[in-house]
């Protein structure tokens, strides 16, 4: 029997990893984090994450190329964006954030692989700029699981009724404005006020670590961020313990864990060279500490990553590997 012959270029074998497989594995690794957020914040968490994801996926489906949803990247953007939002956020705002992240953060650049900035963070930056009050209203824990933690069902363009709900400040806000401490244990476990996915530091570390083991994220980026933030925070804490918080507080508070493990490591918007990844992480670490301690904002992870995203092409060009058998390192244009 003569087979129907296939004639393709070498290599004729491929590794088992594929882009959709990487993306859907990332989605899978987010499931425990979403479950934790739902445990802490009740049904509101699910609703907000679903709204952000719907915004991202619908935008990709409507304006993206045919069949792009299958690669899973829009779902990641939506889920990650949802995890950076407070539980009480009106759902329409979450939806707008997801739509903006995909539309203006990714599709205008040409879709998957072409964007400069992390789409989820761009979506969050938009929501924060557009709805600053709603974005800094952190519901406290407690109440029944079914009870909404805020004005989730507010109609678009109506002002949220935040005053009717029990809210509190996030640990970073407490540190900055009230000089109040939060116990490290509740930071690690996640039983504090804050965005949905920002609170369970240990769980995020485990889920991201799994991706690093699969080589689906470059472990050098989070390690570099943690080392830089840890060293800087510890040094400042030594100088003036009353004014500057310790290294562990800095590492486990706010969005640092989620940002370091999931946002900064976005394959598309991080450097391709390993040396570039070290520098990228260090830059984020420095910016986070600077913004948190001396900046006007409570939290700096988002802007730190977005700023470093803009530098990625330069980092890539500056850290080209030395080609075997050549002397000087030559820069890519």
């Amino acid at each position, binding site marked *: 029997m003569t087979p129907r*012959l296939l*004639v393709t*270029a070498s*290599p*004729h074998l491929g590794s088992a990893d*594929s882009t959709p497989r990487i993306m859907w594995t990332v989605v899978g690794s987010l499931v425990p984090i979403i479950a934790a957020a739902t445990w802490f914040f009740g049904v509101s968490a699910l609703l907000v994450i679903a709204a952000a994801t719907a915004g991202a996926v619908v935008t990709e489906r409507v304006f993206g190329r045919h069949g792009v949803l299958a690669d899973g990247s829009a779902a990641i953007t939506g889920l990650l964006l949802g995890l950076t939002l407070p539980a009480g956020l009106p759902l329409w705002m979450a939806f707008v954030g997801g739509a903006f992240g995909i539309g203006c953060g990714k599709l205008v650049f040409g879709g998957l692989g072409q964007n400069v900035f992390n789409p989820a963070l761009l979506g969050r930056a938009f929501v924060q700029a557009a709805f600053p009050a709603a974005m800094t209203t952190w519901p406290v824990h407690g109440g029944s699981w079914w009870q909404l933690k805020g004005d989730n069902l507010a109609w678009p363009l109506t002002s949220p009724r935040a005053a009717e709900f029990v809210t509190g400040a996030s640990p970073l806000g407490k540190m900055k404005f009230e000089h109040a401490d939060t116990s490290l244990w509740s930071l690690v476990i996640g039983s504090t006020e804050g965005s949905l996915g920002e609170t369970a530091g240990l769980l995020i570390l485990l889920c991201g670590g799994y991706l690093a083991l699969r080589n689906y994220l470059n472990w050098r980026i989070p390690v570099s961020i943690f080392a830089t933030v840890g060293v800087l925070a510890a040094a400042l804490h030594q100088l003036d313990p009353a004014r500057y918080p310790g290294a562990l507080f800095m590492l486990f508070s706010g969005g640092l864990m989620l940002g370091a493990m999931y946002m900064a490591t976005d394959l598309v918007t991080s450097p391709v060279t390993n040396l570039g990844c070290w520098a990228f992480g260090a830059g984020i670490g420095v910016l986070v500490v600077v913004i948190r301690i001396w900046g006007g904002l409570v939290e700096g992870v988002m802007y730190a990553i977005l700023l470093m995203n803009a530098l990625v092409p330069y980092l890539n060009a500056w850290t080209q590997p030395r080609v075997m058998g050549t002397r000087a390192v*030559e820069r*890519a244009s």
Partner: protein
Amino acid sequence: MGVRPGRNGHGRFRHGVHPPELKELTAKTPIRRAPFPDEVVLPLRQHTGKPARAIVAPGARVERGDTVAEADGFVSSPVHASATGIVEAIELWPHPDGSWAPAVRIAVERYSVQAARPRLVPEWESLSPAELIEAIRQAGVVGLGGAAFPTHVKLSPPKDARIDTVLINGCECEPYLTTDHRTMVEYPERVHLGLRIMMRVLGVTRGVIGVETNKPDAIEALRATKPTDIDVTVQPLEVKYPQGAEKMLIASVLGREVPSGKLPLHVGVVVQNVASAATIAEVFETGLPLVERIVTVTGRGVRQPANLIVPVGTKVRDLVAACGGFTDDAREIVFGGPMMGVAQANLDTPLVKGTSGIVVLSEDEVRGQRSYPCIRCGHCLDACPVFLNPQHLGQLALKGRYEEMEAMHLADCMLCGCCGYTCPSNIPLPQLFALAKTALRQRPAVKA
């Protein structure tokens, strides 16, 4: 068993990939002789360099070992009849590289014993280096690892080159192939004799045979037969693709880095494949030129994978028939290994001197056709053994910016396929780079 890669003698190179080895199909299968086919086809270009010039006419009777085409120039190699028979035609025929190229077609004589014409076998020890090189040249010996560079050219380095080591490549890092493996296990004395002759030709005192540690029986066989009067070592090497690439092998074994755009002889090394070494030994043992080679016919697409001794010029059709035929899910026929080999479109394509394996891949192991956009994961940078940036090169290639690729050392790319193997978006990077190289080569002609 003492076959770990050496720590300080390196035994390792940086980067590279770990494809599945898939060698178990034929690793323990002894080499056997395949039956002579009814017809052999001998392309005039079976080596790197200028094609040979045919010196027989249709209708002529040739005996096994007779010269049918002469070398045309120094970087060229003669072609010999691989079976006794009648020359049918000299015509264009499907070539393993995918083109149609001139070839001598011989109808093999039925019921012939296929004995070689009695020939004077020179005692190699009585010959001078120049005479040894000439004997090797006349026997049509070329590198049997795949690139088929004429061996006599490699053995004639420029006068000012200071060669100190002959390195025998027994890595066979391509998945599936076991040609070199079985040669080392079954003919270790020939490998050593070939190495000894080459060391004599080059006036070199050190010989090293590099073997990946997944072939412990080959390492054992080579060590058991190692000569004691000359300095020959058998160096176990890490199992990693492309350990058998010349530059990687030199880095692993000697810790030397071949300069960009230069040859191994610039760092004092001549590299030869084990099968080439064994063939040189055979030339002086039997007097028969290179008319047959050992080839692995394997893959999940053939029913009885085997290591065969076959006449050069045997068609794929006959080779697969000698191995029980195709399975129902056979899909792609590759000459060489699956990482660098060339897929064939025609079952009449003949095996040439440089064909180290014929791999028939099944439907479910061929690579998918669908590509995704580059997600800049950087896996290709971690895979590239010469430390190029395949990610950036690939983006430039897609835009046709070939000049910029040249500035990024595209010339150092050896098309090993590591980047394409590891790419999760299934971007055909090696194909893009091959295209860019071709475009750059043809550039002056286009401009003129």
